[in-house]
């Protein structure tokens, strides 16, 4: 099975924008930053709050609930790298953004 799933059109997100997408039953946060697309799970590993409601600052997303911050590239929690949100590969083909749901 091909693990790449269509997420959105490239033009739907401006730089510095993000949105929550539902992929194969998983809630994913898709972020466009500095020209790249990044996909991590939208569920905060602390208490499950949706990261898409948080604040994006460069490559850091801050959870709206208790302000934990994660690197959107690796999914790493900035205050303890052992804690991670699942991060997924992305690719852009013909103006369409795909997420690799196999990790």
């Amino acid at each position: 099975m091909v693990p790449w799933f269509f997420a959105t059109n490239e033009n739907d997100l401006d730089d510095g924008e993000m949105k929550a997408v539902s992929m194969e039953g998983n809630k994913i946060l898709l972020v466009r930053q500095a020209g790249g697309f990044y996909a991590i799970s939208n569920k905060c590993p602390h208490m499950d709050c949706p990261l898409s409601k948080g604040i994006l600052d460069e490559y850091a997303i801050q959870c709206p609930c208790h302000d934990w911050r994660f690197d959107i590239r690796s999914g790493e929690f900035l205050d303890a790298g052992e804690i991670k949100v699942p991060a997924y590969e992305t690719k852009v083909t013909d103006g369409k953004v795909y997420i690799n749901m196999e990790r």
Partner: protein
Amino acid sequence: MDTKKRKEQFRTMFQRVIDPLGYKFSPDEELVDFLLEQEVMLEKERGSPFCPCQGLTGERKHDMQLVCPCIPFHREHFDAMKRCWCGLYVHKDVDDPDELVQISKKEFEESKSKG
């Protein structure tokens, strides 16, 4: 939501957080149950499951670092005690939590600078 159910949810969520940090719930079940109960109450009253043994100032940046599990924000200090301040969590190798003592932040910093 009733307290008992929320306590169980805290256990599940927090276990996920503390495990990769090398901690586990204290083997002192009575203490764990009491502390979780306080956290459920604090969440109801103050919006988040704050540490029952550390004081809130009302300043968001300060207080958010006291939401349970607060280990990531006090890592070195807690590692030195092999427990978190309130004792809800201990290092995985701890069998008898009563042998551990609380070291204050100042004592910890002084011992660190002495090397």
